[in-house]
């Protein structure tokens, strides 16, 4: 149903009754042949093999599948894979570098921002979209930005602290 190739610039050879799309995910260029009804979340998980993006409710409620498309947070269970043709996707796997955690990941570690961890990738990506737009959010702004993401373990207190920790770290690094 889905085949993902490394984009080598030449035309892929397979002749599928599917649609060919090109997209960038975490900096890597990809070509995929997708059936139009394939969801973005499934392209990411099964096609590209990045299983950090979690499928929780599958009904646009929980936000566990949140990724960034062109820098904006979206619920990847509620977008078709064909719609990222020509666009850029960021997932939780794109946060850390080979040697360093992203400040958001550090923040969740330092402030104990997760328990079971299921919602965490979505929380981090929603938080990344917030901090990219607003490097110095108030606690209320963090809560507002994460209000589309559900967590059943933490009661949110430590998640909010984690995001504020990351904001501090990012500001001190850039200032």
């Amino acid at each position, binding site marked *: 149903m889905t085949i993902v190739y490394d984009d080598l610039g030449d035309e892929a050879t397979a002749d599928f009754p599917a*649609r060919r799309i090109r997209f960038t995910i975490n900096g890597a260029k990809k070509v995929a042949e997708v*059936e*139009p*009804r*394939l*969801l973005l979340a499934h392209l990411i998980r099964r096609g590209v093999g990045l299983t950090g993006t979690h499928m929780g409710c*599958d*009904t*646009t*409620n929980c*936000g566990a599948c*949140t990724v960034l498309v062109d820098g*904006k*947070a*979206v*619920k990847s*269970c*509620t*977008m*078709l894979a*064909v*719609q990222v*043709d020509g666009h850029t996707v960021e997932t939780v796997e794109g946060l850390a570098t080979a040697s360093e955690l992203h400040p958001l990941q550090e923040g969740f570690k330092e402030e104990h921002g997760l328990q079971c961890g299921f919602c965490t990738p979505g929380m981090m990506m*929603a938080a990344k979209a917030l901090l990219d737009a607003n490097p110095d959010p*108030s606690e*209320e*702004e963090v*809560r*507002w*930005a994460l*209000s*589309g*993401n559900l967590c059943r373990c933490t009661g949110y207190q430590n998640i909010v602290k984690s995001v504020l920790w990351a904001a501090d770290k990012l500001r001190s690094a850039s200032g």
Partner: protein
Amino acid sequence: MYPSRFRYEAPRSLAEAISLLHEGGEAKVLAGGQSLVPLMKLRFATPELLVDINNIGGLDYHREDADGTLRVGALCRHADLERSALLPGKQPTMAAAAPLIADPIVRNRGTLVGSLCHADPQGDWASVMVALGGSVVAQGPTGRRTIPVADFVTGPFENVLAPDEIAVEAVVPPHRGTPAGGYLKLERRVGDFATVGVAVAVETSGGTVTRAGIALTGVGGSTIACTEAAGALTGQALTPQVIEQAADLAAGAAKPRTDHRGSAEYKRHMVRTFVVRILSRTGPAAGEQAAAGQPGPGPEAERAA
């Protein structure tokens, strides 16, 4: 969950999109997809053809004409309206509603025009647009027509669009006085349907109401236009007595049902409370506050404990 199979087209122009729809068969137009995609996944919607309009340029605007008419394009997202610099001073009812639609992530994709087309009886924007006397502009093979929102929706999830028409724009007529009003939504948590939603839009001139619109969300089988309540405001100064009278009429127009979100009595009471609350802040001071205030964290939401 997967949608059933469909043919997908992503045209680059409205003319191309309309000619695809004109071919016939069961087709749906995809804008933000935040209602349509879930419906397709649940197989409540099983279109043969999906026409994705996201690649059509020039539909993501919201702007004011020289005469004060507000136009919202089919690809203007809820988030664009939430962050709008234009709305707080010019369209306080819309500015109040935008941050209360669904949740912040859904607002990045979903659109006002799409919400109106989806015609969910619990939709927030329908009430706002009914209160403002707004319209939908539909484009088909033979041209454009403008349909008042009150006539656009014919029933739950039903609208008057012909199979080969696309809703390209929502329109709010120019104000004749100073605009004021708001939208208040009682919801159990972010993203839930409104337990009660109240949209109030008034225009005042010299302390007198020159136009009023009140509409309700979530307290009947559809959006409820409170024409009697609005009529009680028109031509009057917004004294506590006039406000109370309009609030009573609005509460009387509600047809709430007791359900897991609350009792009918409670919902009716909240309609009254919200009308009073919005109108009591209306006037010169409230207008200035609306113009200066950013639609930021938790503005008008009333969340039940």
